[in-house]
């Protein structure tokens, strides 16, 4: 038999076998669907975790960033001396340095008066440190006393702030201090904070009076145009001492991502979920295929007696595995898209479904089913036509 008919006949027989027993087909498809959805959801949570983790750093604008070495992530910084940042001004390539203050604060819902925790960013407005159209447009407003901008991508528990501002109800409390919300911007919630507020460094210290002005959380370093960033980074690192870290933009983003990936157990937990989903799916598909081969052992042995090769029989089993992968994955993708939308509505963190992720999960599912098929193929060895007599 030539190769194409061999594949075609094997695939056709596999399809007929698979679709003959509907309950078995449904059980196997559900197994693959379950694995697909589990993998999609775990990867979805992981991606949204990373996407949300870097929602603040990706808006920060500077050539270099200075952090304390013990800082694990921006949402839980270890403060360092403002003077340490100022030392950078001694470098000939450094044009300016600006501090940023970061802390969790209590924001009072203007309707319910219930307080909820969000992240407060305070910075020197002269620095133009945040790359956001709305924030830049309101920079002058932020220089006034006791004002702030509110992140409209925050959780709804903070109230319909945008709507309230338009109705003139723009005064609330942040950490018990009356603050006027003079506008909004969009940043997004994270696994660490349900919302964000941006204000000036001076207002930040009004909101957090216990915070010392000379203890900062993050330093922004702007270099002269044409400066060698790598050299300046190495020089500043030497200048500031062993206790500091100096990152460029990409390193800062990766550092923040790396916290959730490595320091926090999130990466491991979601990764483990992916592996467990695939293992459970593989066991289900293996059981179905193994039972199928066992139930048809005499038929397969008869085919062998008729002159069919072992390869043909292996193709039948592998084709069944691939059909299950396609069926389960297609249904799992549909369900996952719906669950992604639901998750976005519930936890206000983006759940992107790019083609790359679809291809990755399909590759996982196809490999899972193929492995299950390869394991079930071992059962075919028992199909000995001599035993049929």
């Amino acid at each position, binding site marked *: 038999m*030539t190769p194409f008919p061999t594949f075609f*006949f094997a695939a056709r027989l596999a399809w007929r076998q698979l679709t003959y*027993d509907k309950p078995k087909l449904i059980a196997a498809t559900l197994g693959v669907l379950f694995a697909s959805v589990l993998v999609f959801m775990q990867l979805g949570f992981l991606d949204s975790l990373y996407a949300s983790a870097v929602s603040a750093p990706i808006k920060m604008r500077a050539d270099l960033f200075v952090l304390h070495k013990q800082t694990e992530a921006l949402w839980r910084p270890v403060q360092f001396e403002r003077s340490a940042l100022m030392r950078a001004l001694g470098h000939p390539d450094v044009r300016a340095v600006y501090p940023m203050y970061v802390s969790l604060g209590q924001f009072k819902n203007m309707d319910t008066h219930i307080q909820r925790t969000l992240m407060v960013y305070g910075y020197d407005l002269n620095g133009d440190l945040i790359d956001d159209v709305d924030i830049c447009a309101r920079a002058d407003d932020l220089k006034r006393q006791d004002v702030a901008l509110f992140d409209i991508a925050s959780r709804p528990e903070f109230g319909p702030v945008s709507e309230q501002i338009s109705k003139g109800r723009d005064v609330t409390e942040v950490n018990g201090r009356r603050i006027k919300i003079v506008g909004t911007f969009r940043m997004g919630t994270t696994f660490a904070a349900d919302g964000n507020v941006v204000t000036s460094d001076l207002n930040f210290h009004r909101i957090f009076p216990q915070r010392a002005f000379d203890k900062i959380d993050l330093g922004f370093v702007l270099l002269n145009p044409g400066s060698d960033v790598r050299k300046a980074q190495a020089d500043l690192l030497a200048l500031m001492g062993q206790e500091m870290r100096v990152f460029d933009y990409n390193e800062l983003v990766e550092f923040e991502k790396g916290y959730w990936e490595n320091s926090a157990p999130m990466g491991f937990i979601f990764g483990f979920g992916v592996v467990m989903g695939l293992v459970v799916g593989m066991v289900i598909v293996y059981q179905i295929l193994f039972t199928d081969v066992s139930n048809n052992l*005499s038929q397969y*042995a008869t085919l062998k007696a008729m002159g069919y090769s072992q390869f043909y029989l292996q193709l039948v089993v592998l084709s069944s595995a691939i059909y299950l992968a396609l069926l389960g994955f297609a249904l799992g993708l549909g369900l996952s898209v719906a669950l992604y939308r639901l998750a976005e509505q519930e936890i206000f963190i983006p759940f992107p479904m790019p083609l790359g992720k679809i291809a990755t999960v399909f590759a996982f599912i196809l490999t899972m089913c193929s492995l299950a098929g390869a394991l079930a193929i071992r059962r075919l060895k028992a199909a000995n036509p001599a035993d049929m007599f």
Partner: protein
Amino acid sequence: MALVDVKGVSFAYGAGEFRRQVLNNVDFSVDRGEIVILTGPSGSGKTTLLTILGGLRLAVTGSAVVLGRELVNSDENVRMGVRRQIGYIFQQHNLFWPLTAVENVCMALELDDRLSEAERRQRAGEMLTEVGLADHLDRRPKQLSGGQRQRVAIARALVSRPKLVLADEPTASLDKASGHEAVNILKRLAKDYGATILLVTHDYRILDIADRIITLEDGAITPQSVPSS
């Protein structure tokens, strides 16, 4: 020239103290177009002999030339080549439940690249008509009686026009009427197509279809083996 020519074939299962000799120096031959029944008590070695002649089990002693190919000490490719020219009928029909009668019979023709899909279906339909199942072509095994299933198995074994048909207790799972009907169909078609039949059975009711009966006892052919007439 004999279609099956067996000389000095011996076979044993196991080794050492667990070795059990099943065939002892068996000699016999089957001519083209003959219907030969191989009978004998359980454990006499008749099924083992049938599997060796069908290229399903490898013997290492003696000579077994089937369809012009030596099977003793042969490699798998030789045996597979011989298997493709043989029609097999088992005690159980071993039909694929999801496939219709005509699709099951077509399975025997899918190894033949020269036939188109339509030609396969046509030949399978004609063969099923020959075995009296013209009205059951598109029925699945579940919708057929035991006798009808065995007739589909016979059609599957003969549709590729094999020169040799090996049957092992084809009536074992059938009642008397169905069993007799099945072997009569087998005999008629074998004669029509010039096929040679080597049939293993315990069923004395069907001995009358044979041209010759060979009896095996303790792995050897007994002198009582005679033409059935």
